[in-house]
C-alpha cells in the first residue's frame, strides 16, 4: 500500500507550511526553493505536444497512468511558476482520475497565490490545471472502456 496522502491532506500541509511565513519574502523564497528542487523534466519530454504555452513563461506537463492512478511530471522555464507547478504536482499526482477531477484546489487561495491564476495569459498555470484535469478525464474514460470490455 502506498503511503501517499490524500489530496486534502497534502493541501492542508501546504496551508500549514505557509501559515508560518510572516511576510511575502518568506513565501516566495519557499516557492522558489520548491521550484529549484523540482527535478528538471527530461529533454525528451520537452516537446511541442507537452507544452502549455503561457504568454510569457512555458509549462511542460507529462502524465502517466498505471494502477488506476495518474503520475504527473512537469517543468517550467520561470522559477516561481515552477514552484507553483511543484505544489500542484505534489497535491494531485498519484491519485485516481476521480480524486483529481473532484479536487477544488482551495489551497491556492488559502496561501494567497490566487493572483498567479488571475494572470491567465502570462504564465500558463490556469491552462496547466485544466490540462491536468483533462488528463484525468481522458484516463477515466479509458478506464471505463476497459471495464466495459
Amino acid at each position, binding site marked *: 500500500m502506498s503511503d501517499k496522502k490524500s489530496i486534502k491532506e497534502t493541501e492542508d500541509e501546504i496551508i500549514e507550511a505557509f501559515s508560518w511565513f510572516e511576510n*511575502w519574502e518568506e513565501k516566495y523564497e519557499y516557492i522558489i526553493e520548491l521550484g529549484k528542487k523540482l527535478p528538471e523534466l527530461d529533454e525528451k519530454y520537452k516537446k511541442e505536444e507537452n507544452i502549455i504555452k503561457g504568454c510569457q*513563461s512555458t509549462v511542460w506537463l507529462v502524465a502517466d497512468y498505471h494502477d488506476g492512478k495518474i503520475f504527473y511530471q512537469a517543468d517550467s*522555464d520561470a522559477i*516561481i511558476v515552477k514552484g507553483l507547478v511543484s505544489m500542484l504536482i505534489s497535491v494531485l499526482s498519484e491519485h485516481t482520475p476521480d480524486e483529481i477531477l473532484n479536487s477544488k484546489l482551495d489551497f491556492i487561495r488559502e496561501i494567497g497565490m490566487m493572483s498567479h491564476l488571475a494572470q491567465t495569459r502570462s504564465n500558463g498555470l490556469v491552462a496547466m490545471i485544466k490540462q491536468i484535469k483533462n488528463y484525468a478525464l481522458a484516463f477515466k474514460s479509458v478506464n471505463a472502456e476497459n471495464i466495459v470490455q
Partner: protein
Amino acid sequence: MAESITITPTFDVNEIRKSFPVLEREVNNKLLVYLDNAATAQKPQSVIDALSYYYSNYNANIHRGIHSLAEEATAAYEATRVTVQKFIHASYPEEIIFTRGTTEGINLVAYTWGRQNIHAGDEIIISTMEHHSNIVPWQILCEEKHAVLKVVPVNDNGELLMDEFHNLLSPKTKLVSIVHVSNALGTINPVKEIIDAAHEVGAVVMVDGAQSTVHLTIDVQKMNCDFFAFSGHKVYGPTGIGVLYGKKKILENMPVFMGGGEMIKEVTFEKTTYNNLPYKYEAGTPNIADTIALKVALDYVTEVGKSNAKKYETELLQYATEELKKIPGLRIIGNAKNKVSLISFVIENIHPQDIGVLLDNQGIAVRTGHHCTQPLMKRFGIPGTVRASFAMYNTREEVDKLIAGLQKAIKMLA
C-alpha cells in the same frame, strides 16, 4: 517688432506628481512605483474630471442634435480635433480622424488605402522592431493581394540598419510603415530620412507614433509622413481614443472603411454617397467622452512643455541606465544612441517573469514579456525582457527603488 522673450516654465516633478492621483496609492503595502508607462500612462485629475463632467453635465449624441446638450458636446468633441491638429502640427483639422487607438489607425489604412493601392508583386517595407500591430495588418494585406512584405533588420544596439533599408527601396515599394519609437527598445528611428527616401521611389509612408507622441514633439508636416497614428492613453489621455492623421489629398481619395451613421451624405437603396472628411471615417456614434477628455490630456502636456518633459525624462533615462548597468549579469536590450526614457533588460539565468512578480510584491510595476514584438525578441535570441518605462512624473527616487527592488529579487532568485 518687439523682442520676444521666451520664458521657460520650470519643471517641478513634485508639482506634476500632484496632478496624478493614482501615484498616491499603495500596492502590496508600498507606495506605487509605476514604471509601465509605455503600456499606458496614468491620467491627471483634470482628465478624470473632464470625463465625469461630460457625463454629469452635457452627455448627448453629437453632430445631428439641435438641442443645447448636443451642441455643447459637438463643440467639445470638435475642439479636440483642433487641439490634436495643433499638437501634431497637421495642416487641417479634417486630417485628424478619431479611432480607438494606434492599432485601429494602422488597420484603417491597411483596409482602405492598402486595398485600393497594393497590387500583386508590390512591396511593403516594415522593420524587425515593429509591434505586432504594425506587422499583422500588412501581412493580411500582402496575403490577400499577393504582395511582398520586406523587413529592415536591426543591429545589436537595436538601431535600424539604414543601408539595408535603402537597399530594399525600389519602384516596387508602395508603402513603408515604420515605428517612430520602439516600444520594446526605446529606439528613436530616423523617420525623416526614411520618409524622404521612400518618397523618392514614390512610396507612401505610415508612421506608428504610439510611443513617440508622448515623448517627442510631433510635426507631421516637417516629417512629411503620409499617415501617422497614435493612442490617447499613452499621452495621459483616456483609453479607447486614438488618432489617425492622413494627408488630406490621400484621405480624400481613399475608399471608406466602415459604413453606417455619420459617414454618409445620402442613403438610398440604390446608392449611398459619403460624407466629407473626417466624418467619412467616423461611422457610428464615436467615443465622445474620451475624445473630449483627450483634449484635456494634450493641453496638460502642452502646459508642462514637451521639451521640458523630454529634458527631464532624458536625465532620468541616463541615471537609470547608469544604475542598471551596475547590476551584475544585467544586459540592456536596446542601446541606441537616440532613445526615449524606456529600458528593456534581461538578467542572466533569470526569467523576466520572475523579476516582474518579485518587483510587483515591492509595489513596483514594470512590464515583462515579449512586448508584442516576437520577431524582435527572436532577433535578440531572448524570450522576453523586463521593461521599465518612465514618464514625466517618475523620479530618481523611484529609479533607486527599482534598483533596490531588482537587487532584492536577484538575491531571492539566486
